[in-house]
C-alpha cells in the first residue's frame, strides 16, 4: 500500500501495475479525494461550511457568506451545498464519525436530539460566542431552549421557519375574508376555518385551500403536530416506555382536518408540487405551507398575504423548525481555526436580514428590529410565529427528514383522506412511535 501511484520513467509493465495497486490501496484505506483536499485549508486556517440550501435559499446563503468574507478580514470560507433531506444527514453523520467533518454545518434543531448525545457534535463555548457579540438574550427563549442539550449549547439558531397560512389577497377580498386593514380577518375556530375555505372555494370555483400531503414525507405531520399543540394536549415520549398522547385532543384535530378536507374548503388529494402549482396559478386562494416557499409564491402572486397558523384550538402555536449552525466533532482542535469558525457563524447571524428575504424569520432578534426587516412584507405579518414555535418531540429519531416524520405523515395522510378512522390512526401512530422508542439508538 506504500507504492507511489505516480509513474516514473521508464514505465514498465510492473510499475503500472504497482501504480494501480497503490491507487487502489489508497481508496481501500478510506482516504477519499475530499479528505485529501482538506489539508491545504487546515494549514491556512480556512473554515469549511456545509449547508443544504438550494434555489433561492442557496443564492441568499452564498451572498451572505460573501458579505462575511469581505467584512471579516482574512477569513477564508469554503462552502459546500448538499441536497436537502435525509441524505444530507447521512453525509453529516458519516463525516462526523470519520473525523472529516466541516468546521460548521447547518442542522435542523429538530435533529439535535439524535446528534448531540452521540458525541457527533461539539458544544459551543459561550464565552467565545460572547466575544463575537452573540448572547442568549438575542434569541427568542423557545428557540434558544431548543438548541440546548444537558445544559450546553449545541446549536446557534439562524432562523425559525414555521408552517403557516399564505393567502392570495385579491381572491380573499372577493371572498370577503379581508378586514378593514386589508389583511385576513382573524380565523379563530375550526368552523370559521372551514367557512373561510368554503367561501374561498366559491370564488376559485374549485377548492379554497391548498395542502400538499399525498405521498409527502412531512406535511401531514407538520399540520397535525402544530394544531395538536394548539389544543394544549400533553404527550410523553421517552425511550424504553410506551408513548402516550391525549387521545381526545388528537381525535379532535384529525376530525377537524377530515371535515376541512372535503374537496371544497380544502383540496383532498394534492401532493406537494401540485398544491404549490394550484396556489400560484390561482386555482386555490390559500395554502398551508412552510414559509420557505415564499419566494415562489411572491413571484407568482402580486398581492400575497401570510399569517401564522390560525389559532383554532385556543393556544397560539405554529409548527416550526429552525436552521442552526452546529459544530461537528473534529479530531484535531486548532484554536485559531475555532475562532475563525465562531467569527463566521456570528457574521452570518448578523447578515440574516438577507436571509429574511427568503421568508425565514431571523432567530437573531436585533435583525428583527432593523428598518430593513420592518419593510419586508409579508414576512412581518407572520413574524410572531417565531415566538411560539412547536418543534418535534426531542427524541433521537424525530426531526426533519427522518423516517419518523415520514411514518407519522403517511398514517395521518391516510386518516385525513378517510382511509383510516381517527382512532385507528391514533393507534397506528402510537404503535409506530412505541416501536421506535424500543429500537436501538444507532447514534
Amino acid at each position: 500500500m506504500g507504492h507511489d501511484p505516480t509513474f516514473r520513467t521508464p514505465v514498465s509493465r510492473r510499475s503500472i501495475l504497482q501504480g494501480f495497486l497503490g491507487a487502489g490501496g489508497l481508496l481501500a484505506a478510506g482516504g477519499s479525494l475530499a479528505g485529501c483536499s482538506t489539508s491545504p485549508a487546515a494549514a491556512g486556517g480556512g473554515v469549511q461550511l456545509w449547508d443544504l440550501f438550494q434555489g433561492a435559499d442557496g443564492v441568499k446563503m452564498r451572498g451572505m457568506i460573501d458579505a462575511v468574507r469581505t467584512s471579516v478580514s482574512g477569513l477564508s470560507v469554503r462552502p459546500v451545498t448538499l441536497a436537502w433531506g435525509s441524505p444530507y444527514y447521512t453525509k453529516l453523520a458519516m463525516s462526523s464519525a470519520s473525523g472529516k467533518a466541516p468546521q460548521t454545518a447547518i442542522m435542523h434543531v429538530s435533529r439535535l436530539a439524535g446528534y448531540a448525545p452521540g458525541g457527533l457534535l461539539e458544544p459551543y463555548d459561550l464565552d467565545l460566542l460572547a466575544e463575537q457579540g452573540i448572547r442568549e438574550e438575542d434569541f427568542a427563549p423557545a428557540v434558544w431552549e431548543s438548541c440546548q442539550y444537558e445544559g450546553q449549547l449545541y446549536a446557534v439558531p439562524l432562523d425559525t421557519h414555521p408552517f403557516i397560512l399564505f393567502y392570495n389577497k385579491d381572491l380573499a377580498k372577493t371572498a370577503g375574508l379581508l378586514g378593514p386593514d386589508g389583511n385576513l380577518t382573524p380565523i379563530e375556530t375550526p368552523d370559521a376555518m372551514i367557512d373561510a375555505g368554503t367561501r374561498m372555494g366559491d370564488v376559485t370555483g374549485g377548492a379554497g385551500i391548498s395542502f400538499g400531503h399525498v405521498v409527502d414525507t412531512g406535511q401531514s405531520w407538520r399540520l397535525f403536530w402544530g394544531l395538536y399543540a394548539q389544543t394544549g394536549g400533553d404527550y410523553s415520549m421517552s425511550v424504553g416506555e410506551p408513548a402516550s398522547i391525549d387521545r381526545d385532543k388528537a381525535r379532535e384535530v384529525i376530525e377537524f382536518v377530515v371535515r376541512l378536507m372535503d374537496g371544497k374548503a380544502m383540496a383532498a388529494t394534492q401532493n406537494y408540487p401540485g398544491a404549490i402549482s394550484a396556489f400560484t396559478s390561482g386555482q386555490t386562494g390559500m395554502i398551508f405551507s412552510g414559509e420557505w416557499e415564499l419566494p415562489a409564491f411572491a413571484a407568482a402572486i402580486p398581492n400575497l398575504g401570510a399569517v401564522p397558523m390560525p389559532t383554532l384550538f385556543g393556544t397560539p402555536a405554529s409548527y416550526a423548525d429552525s436552521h442552526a449552525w452546529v459544530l461537528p466533532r473534529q479530531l484535531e482542535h486548532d484554536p485559531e481555526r475555532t475562532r475563525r469558525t465562531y467569527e463566521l457563524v456570528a457574521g452570518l447571524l448578523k447578515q440574516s436580514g438577507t436571509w429574511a428575504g427568503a421568508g425565514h424569520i431571523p432567530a437573531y432578534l436585533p435583525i428583527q428590529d432593523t428598518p430593513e426587516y420592518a419593510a419586508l412584507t409579508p414576512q412581518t405579518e407572520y413574524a410572531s410565529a417565531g415566538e411560539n414555535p412547536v418543534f418535534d418531540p426531542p427524541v433521537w429519531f424525530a426531526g426533519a427528514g427522518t423516517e419518523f416524520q415520514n411514518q407519522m405523515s403517511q398514517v395521518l395522510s391516510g386518516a385525513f383522506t378517510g382511509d383510516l378512522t381517527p382512532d385507528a390512526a391514533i393507534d397506528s401512530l402510537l404503535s409506530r412511535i412505541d416501536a421506535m422508542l424500543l429500537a436501538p439508538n444507532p447514534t
Partner: protein
Amino acid sequence: MSSLTSSNEAQAPVAASGASSAPPSRSRTKSARERSIQGRSGFWFVLPFAAAFAMFLIWPILSGLWMSFTNQSLTGKGSEFAGFGNYSEALGDAALWQALGNTVIFTLLTVVPLVVLSFILAYLVYIGLPGQWLWRLSFFAPYLLPVSVAVAIWQWMFQPDFGLFNGLLLRAGFAQIPFLSEASLAMFSVVVVTVWWTLGFNFLLYLSALNNIPDHLYEAASIDGAGPWRRLFSITIPMINRTTVMIIMLQVLASLKVFEQIFLLTNGGPNGSTRSVLQYIYDVGFTGYRLGYASAISYLFFALIIIISIVQLRVMNRKSA
C-alpha cells in the same frame, strides 16, 4: 532382457526429443517452463481486474456479512459482535414482511406484461406493420430515458386536478382517480410506469430473435397448408423459446431488485404500500443509520434471490430441454 530395456530407455529420449523438435507438435504440447511463463503473464493481466473485483465486490460482501452480525451504526458505533440478533429481529419485522410482499406483487405484476406485451409488440413489428422503423423507435425510446425523466413525465400525468389523466376525466365530468395517493392504486401506477419504461429492452431481444428464424421454415409450413395462427404457435413461439426463457429470468431478477422508480414516484407510500425490500434496506441503513440491521436484511434477501434463481433455472431447463 537387459538389452531390451536398455534399448527402450535409449529410444525413449530420442523419440521425445524428436517430437519436441518437430515444429507441428511444438504448438500442441508445451514444456513445463513455457507453461509457467504463460501462466504468470496471464496472472499479471488479470491482476488489475482481480484486485478491483476483490476490493469492490468480495471484500464488501464479506464485510457486509460480518456487519450483519453486529449493531454497526453509520456513525461508527456498535461494531462488536451481536450474534443473530439482527436476523431474529428481521424475521419478526412487520415492515420488512410488508416490503417483501410488495416486492413479490410488483414482480408478478411486471414480469407478465413485460414478457407478453413485448412479444406482441415485437411480433406486430416483425410481421410488417407499415412504418416499421417508427414503431421500433417508439417502443424502444422510453428505455433510453433516465429513470428520473421517465418518472417526472408520469408524475405529471398522474397529478390530481390538472394532470393529463385527471384533467381529462374532470373535463369529461368523471371523478378523479387518485393514482398515487391510494394504497390500492399506487402499486398499479408504479407497474404502469415500469412497463412503459423498460418494455423496450425485451422488445428488442424478441425482435432480433424473431428475425433469426429461418424463412424456409415458414415457406415449408405454408406449402403444407399452415395458416398464420398455426405458423405462430408451431414455428414462431417454439423457435424463440430460448429467448423467452432468458427474458423471464432477467426480468424476474430485475423486478425483485426494484428501487429507483418507486423511490422517486411514491417514496414507498402511501403508508408503505409500495415500499420494496431494497428501499427498506436503504431506509433502515442510510436514513435510520442501522447498517448492521440493513446488512442482515440484505443477506436474507440475497438468500431468497439465490433460491428463486435456482428454482427458476431448474424449471426453465426442464421446460426448454
